[in-house]
């Protein structure tokens, strides 16, 4: 059974999605339990694989019994296994949290929603687990298509935002496909490990150089690296919170994972960091992303929009960290994938609960929210602290590695950008806290004595409990980040990188 886990991890959700799609026409009541159990099984499988990887090293699974490079293999190693757990847990937590708002927003289509939701998760799992460059493209498109449709059914402006996302996403994915094609005609193979084997003798091959440029450009577009971020804010803020809750934490992060995977295990670190002289330039792009993301976030007047620009800045963190090209930087980028997924999930879940209750997400509507929804705001606060980077939340530790990496690489611009964005984040969130805490201004003479009778407006339990779980996870991830780094991430980074 253990050796089948890598397949079950992704096949179970796929089968579930199909069964849910059928069940929605026969007995809609079954959809939610089915969805939940499918994702739960997948989560269990991902945890099992993680244990297996920690205990015995990377796991390889040949699809159809064909060995690489003939067939498609799944390679679950130190890099992918933690991300898999993150994906499945994010999906399941957001599912619980989003249940109420799904039933409200998509009457008669909940089955289709759940089915698309699982397919999206399946795509994400596949991108992470696959060891085949072309298979990655197919799964990328599954995740993208489901993403477009989930985003497209939001408020009035969602379809146009989603259509723009679709155009840009298609360009990005096609660029990636083209890059894979270039690699294919240069080497004749599609398997990642096999491609990496060819790299040393391809160091001055212009096809490979162009493949690198175009692959990375494609992934940069998909992950919304500034200045290619244009699609993200609208797409994420106009869609339903049930959908954003899973798309926002995962899409960009998984794309960054894909970048790291393709960078480290296809083009090899020796090629990108030593042969090419682009990493410095890309780090500067990342710096621009961090600074601009933070500044644009400052200019926003609604919660979701602000969060989306924070995502843009966070993408800069990870891209910059990776292209620092040293162990610390890559460790930071990888750890930040995990942490940022948790942080973003926490914030978007809180935002989901808030907009579920208020039907609005402008700052102005958040007055007095600490009194009305104290528990939600505690969760939101935890997420905010993590984004700012306050210990012992996880955000502090990944930022720590990133800054250390920046200092080691002598990229003080990157260090300054990280600190700057931390400060801006502090301003951003405390602005919200102030509004939620102070307004409407209490009359100084009216020292009312209500105790806790004001918690009546709290979001439903199904939203609050997962939110608190994620909030607690932020701290747990922070406390155990030492273990995560030494036991998992350090082994994920090729030995050549110091």
């Amino acid at each position, binding site marked *: 059974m253990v050796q089948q886990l890598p397949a079950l991890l992704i096949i179970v959700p796929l089968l579930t999605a199909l069964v849910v799609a059928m069940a929605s026409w026969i007995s809609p009541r079954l959809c939610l339990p089915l969805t939940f159990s499918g994702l739960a099984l997948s989560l269990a499988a991902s945890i099992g694989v993680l244990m297996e990887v920690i205990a015995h090293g990377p796991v390889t699974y040949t699809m159809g019994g064909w060995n690489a490079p003939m*067939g498609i293999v799944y390679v679950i190693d130190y890099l992918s296994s933690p991300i898999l757990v993150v994906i499945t847990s994010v999906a399941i937590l957001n599912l619980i949290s989003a249940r109420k708002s799904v039933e409200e927003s998509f009457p008669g*289509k909940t089955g289709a929603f759940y089915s698309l939701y699982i397919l999206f998760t399946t795509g994400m799992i596949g991108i992470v687990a696959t060891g085949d460059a072309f298979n990655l493209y197919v799964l990328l498109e599954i995740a993208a298509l489901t993403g477009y*449709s989930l985003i497209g059914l939001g408020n009035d402006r969602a379809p146009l935002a989603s259509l723009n996302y679709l155009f840009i996403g298609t360009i990005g994915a096609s660029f990636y496909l083209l890059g894979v094609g270039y690699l294919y005609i240069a080497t004749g193979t599609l398997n990642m490990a096999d491609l990496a084997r060819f790299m040393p003798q391809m160091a001055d091959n212009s096809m490979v150089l162009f493949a690198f440029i175009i692959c990375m450009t494609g992934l940069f577009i998909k992950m919304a690296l500034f200045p290619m971020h244009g699609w993200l804010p609208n797409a994420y803020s106009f869609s339903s919170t049930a959908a954003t809750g899973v798309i926002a934490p995962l899409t960009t992060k998984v794309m960054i994972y894909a970048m790291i995977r393709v960078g480290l295990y296809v083009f090899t670190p020796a090629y990108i960091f030593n042969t090419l002289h682009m990493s410095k330039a890309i780090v500067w792009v990342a710096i621009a992303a961090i600074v601009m993301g933070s500044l644009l976030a400052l200019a926003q007047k609604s919660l979701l929009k602000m969060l989306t620009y924070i995502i843009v800045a966070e993408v800069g963190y990870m891209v910059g960290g990776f292209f620092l090209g040293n162990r610390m930087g890559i460790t930071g980028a990888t750890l930040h994938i995990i942490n940022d997924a948790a942080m973003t999930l926490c914030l978007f879940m809180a935002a989901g609960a808030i907009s579920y209750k208020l039907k609005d997400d402008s700052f102005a509507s958040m007055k007095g929210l600490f009194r009305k929804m104290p528990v939600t705001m505690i969760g939101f606060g935890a997420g905010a602290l993590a984004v700012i980077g306050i210990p012992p939340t996880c955000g502090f530790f990944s930022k720590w590695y990133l800054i250390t990496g920046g200092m080691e690489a002598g990229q003080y611009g990157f260090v300054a950008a990280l600190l700057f964005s931390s400060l801006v984040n502090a301003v951003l969130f405390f602005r919200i806290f102030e509004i939620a805490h102070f307004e409407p201004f209490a009359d100084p003479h009216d020292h009312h004595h209500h105790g806790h009778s004001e918690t009546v407006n709290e979001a439903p339990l199904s939203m609050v409990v997962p939110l608190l779980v994620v909030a607690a996870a932020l701290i747990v991830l922070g406390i155990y980040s030492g273990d995560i780094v030494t036991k998992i991430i350090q082994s994920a980074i090729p030995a050549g990188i110091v």
Partner: protein
Amino acid sequence: MKITGLVTVIICGALLIFYAMDFPDFGDGTSPASTYLSPYFIEHTIEDANVPNIVTTVLADYRGYDTMYETTVVFTAGLACFFLLRRKESQNPPARFYRHTPTGITLRIEEGGKLPAEGSKVFMRIDSLWAPDSLIIKNTCRLVIAFIQLFALYVVAHGHHSPGGGFQGGVLLGSSIILFAISNDLRRSIKRFNEKTSAILGALGVLLYAGTGFLCLLLGAHFLNYKALAPIFRSTAAMARSHGILCVEIGVAFAVMAVMIWIYYNLSSAGKHDEGL
């Protein structure tokens, strides 16, 4: 925007062409792409799966896992169109058109007006873009559809030996129904092949594919390793692969057919499933 576009396009194009000059020549049989992996596929297809059509073997066996997701993509698209567009209209749509068959008079019935009885022989519900002279079209299509479907089945079944397979056959099957819908009208087509059928059949097709793979997994082999099905088919490993490929091709055909029809229904009527092309 036009100028930006032009500049981007020219720069991109120039770069791409510049780098393309290092690529292998067109039709070069000695490039790495042709000499590294593909010889294995070509030389082992008969031995491994007993299927002469190498594309079919690679598609459904060596890289069968990709193809499963390809089918899933199709299904996803159908589901996405449904999710985005489908809406249940109230019983009284804005306006409907009826044709009084004996006289040929067309009636436009406004919202809330009294509608003719459902099974009325005299009044025929027509689309707003209805054209009366459709006798030739209707009958030709009626004649052709059967042949299209027969050919589609041949394409599905004969994918092992000639160009063809599940996708091509599925598209042909789907197009036959779409042709029916175009030549008659959407409502009549939905009556024969309704939305629920297409939705379930689409999922079922993918399920057939994934289920075959899962069956292999249950039988102890790796996912999609059709060799494990040998005891069920009572055949050699190679023949089991061949049969396995047929199973998944049928699944693909179902899925593609159903989804094509489903997408057509949703797109052509903007999700109302009432009037359409």
